[in-house]
């Protein structure tokens, strides 16, 4: 990267409050009474499948669309009826948002120009922003001469140039290559922390959300399923939808007694304390499934035959047939090195808290699985 990034003394970060937001398009409910508060300086990532309402939330906050009901408050001021142009927010779109007939510098300076900032100051500020994103060298090029990742960085610089109160990012990395995506993601987070701006980041990629957010909001059908720090969303999912959407899960039959669940001979703690006793389906993470010390035992509830080994680099995913069900285990590659299709193995389950759902109700199960 080029010169040391320049930090402006931005204004103090603000709190953003969304209360009871609803929006529907004809018969389709896009948002259903959403409540969300962003703490000053926080980055919240909204995560979910397409149609879950995350983009709608962002657009309502930006003022590009109107909510049917609800209120939006920024720094204590109600901005629900304020037009998009007056909301003082910076937005980065998924693609195509740079003005093709302007140079990079002109693009970044555009917002300042609208605010009647003088030419010299405008250009200087634009250059500062471009240095912040590492693109000062490209200032006089045109968007079509830049790569996708570079274009998005310019878009970010443009959004920040006006010193907005809130930063909005609408799946900014979705259109980029995997490698560029990872790089840019970290950079966005670094810049956001440096500038200290309250940010809403929308994505359908859970890895992205988990990597950069202070809190992750998992959404489905217009509602927030869970809003919590990434580690909590991952290891203590509030609903089975969250558990299934974020990371992989094994669904194993088990029985709940006395505040714990027994799955294939192993007793595991529960995420929720007060689950009624009985037959359940437990959601076990693949990385919680390991090789037992006496791995090649002959029998037992966790003994079976390897069906396939998928090499993923540092880890490998092993699919094991336990006779009555199939289990996915994620192991360090060194452990899995000796395994191949047909090997007999015995697995062990780590005692991480698991989420369970009632096994007796197939309809509920199906609904929770999103079928």
């Amino acid at each position, binding site marked *: 990267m080029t010169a040391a990034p320049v930090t402006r003394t931005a204004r103090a970060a603000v709190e953003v409050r969304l209360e009871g937001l609803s*929006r529907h*398009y004809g018969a389709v409910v896009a948002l259903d009474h959403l409540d969300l508060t962003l703490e000053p300086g926080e980055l919240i990532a909204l995560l979910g499948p*397409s*149609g879950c309402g995350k*983009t709608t939330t962002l657009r309502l906050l930006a003022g*590009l*669309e*109107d909510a049917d009901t609800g209120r939006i408050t920024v720094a204590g001021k109600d901005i629900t009826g304020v037009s998009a142009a007056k909301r003082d927010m910076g937005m980065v779109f998924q693609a195509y948002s740079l003005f093709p007939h302007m140079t990079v510098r002109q693009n970044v300076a555009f917002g300042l120009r609208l605010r009647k900032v003088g030419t010299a100051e405008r250009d200087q500020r634009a250059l500062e922003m471009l240095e912040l994103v590492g693109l000062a060298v490209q200032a006089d090029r045109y968007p079509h001469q830049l790569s996708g990742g570079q274009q998005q960085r310019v878009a970010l610089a443009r959004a920040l140039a006006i010193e907005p109160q809130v930063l909005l990012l609408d799946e900014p990395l979705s259109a980029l290559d995997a490698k560029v995506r990872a790089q840019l993601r970290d950079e966005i987070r670094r810049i956001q922390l440096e500038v200290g701006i309250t940010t809403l980041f929308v994505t359908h990629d859970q890895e992205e959300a988990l990597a950069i957010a202070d809190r992750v909001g998992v959404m489905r059908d217009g509602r927030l399923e869970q809003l919590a720090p990434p580690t909590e969303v991952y290891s203590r999912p509030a609903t089975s939808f969250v558990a299934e959407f974020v990371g992989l899960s094994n669904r194993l039959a088990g029985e709940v007694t006395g505040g714990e669940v027994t799955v294939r001979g192993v007793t595991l703690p529960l995420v929720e304390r007060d689950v009624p006793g009985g037959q359940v389906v437990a959601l076990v993470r693949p990385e919680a499934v390991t090789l037992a010390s006496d791995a090649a035992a002959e029998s037992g509830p966790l003994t079976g035959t390897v069906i396939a080994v998928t090499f993923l680099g540092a880890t490998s995913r092993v699919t094991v047939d336990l006779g009555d069900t199939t289990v996915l285990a994620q192991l360090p590659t060194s452990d899995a090195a000796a395994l191949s299709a047909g090997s007999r193995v015995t697995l062990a389950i780590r005692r991480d808290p698991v989420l369970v759902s009632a096994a007796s109700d197939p309809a509920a199960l199906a609904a929770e699985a999103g079928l």
Partner: protein
Amino acid sequence: MAAVTSVGETPAPAAASRPRGMHAGRRRRLNAFRYVVFTVFGLFFLLPLLAMVRFSFEGAKLGTWSGAAWKQIASYQGEGVPPLLSSIEITLELAVITSVVMLVLLVPTMIWVRLRVQWLARTMEFLSLLPLTIPAIVLVVGLGPIYNRIQHYSLSALMLFWIYVVLALPYAYRALAAGLGAIDVTTLSEAARSLGASWFTVMVRVIAPNMRQAILNALLLTFALVLGEFTIAFLLLYNNLQVELYSISRNTPNAGVVFSTSSAALAFAFILLLILSYAGRRRRGRG
């Protein structure tokens, strides 16, 4: 980029499958604007046409109504000109021939250029637009001697199709280019070729069916053009529909049949284009 829209083609849908909303105030203003524009332009376009239709129902005395002009179409015989019906016939035949030749000439060439000779695309685009701008007069003056020779052999007005194809180029090219642009020609043809298809099969059975809408567009725009063409036929002393109408009007002013035929021709072209814009539409899956 296609420079002319074809009837019935719709722009590529926005990335999001769900509808993209708009600020309420802005939507209201936009709708008001559209309402006004469509009404004003609608009136502007409609009035002369309505006048013409109204006049075609005009009876012997001003103010009376009569369907005579319409009934006359089939049997009208002006002074010193062939029957109206024969010129209608010739024009329709011309339209068909022109359309077919135009398609056979353009579609394979455009697909080929798109696939293998991309550097010629700009040139082809330019050449196709040229006829719009070169005065028909020039073509007539230039081709005059040839057509004189042809008339020597009393070949019929159908010989006009050679020039008509050129005249139709700008519109047909644009319509077809829009259709080509909407499909991934390269991938389709590579897939077909890898399965063993000959180039002919690729064009006729793989690409063309996916351009159905665009081909229909081009066909219909060509039709409209031939139905409305006057200058070249007139200067080359042929008798097509428009020339015939003109002759009738010169010899028998206020001949109602002129108006009824014109109205009919216009209505015919318009209905065809409307049908096309609905017929060619691909059945869309959910969102």
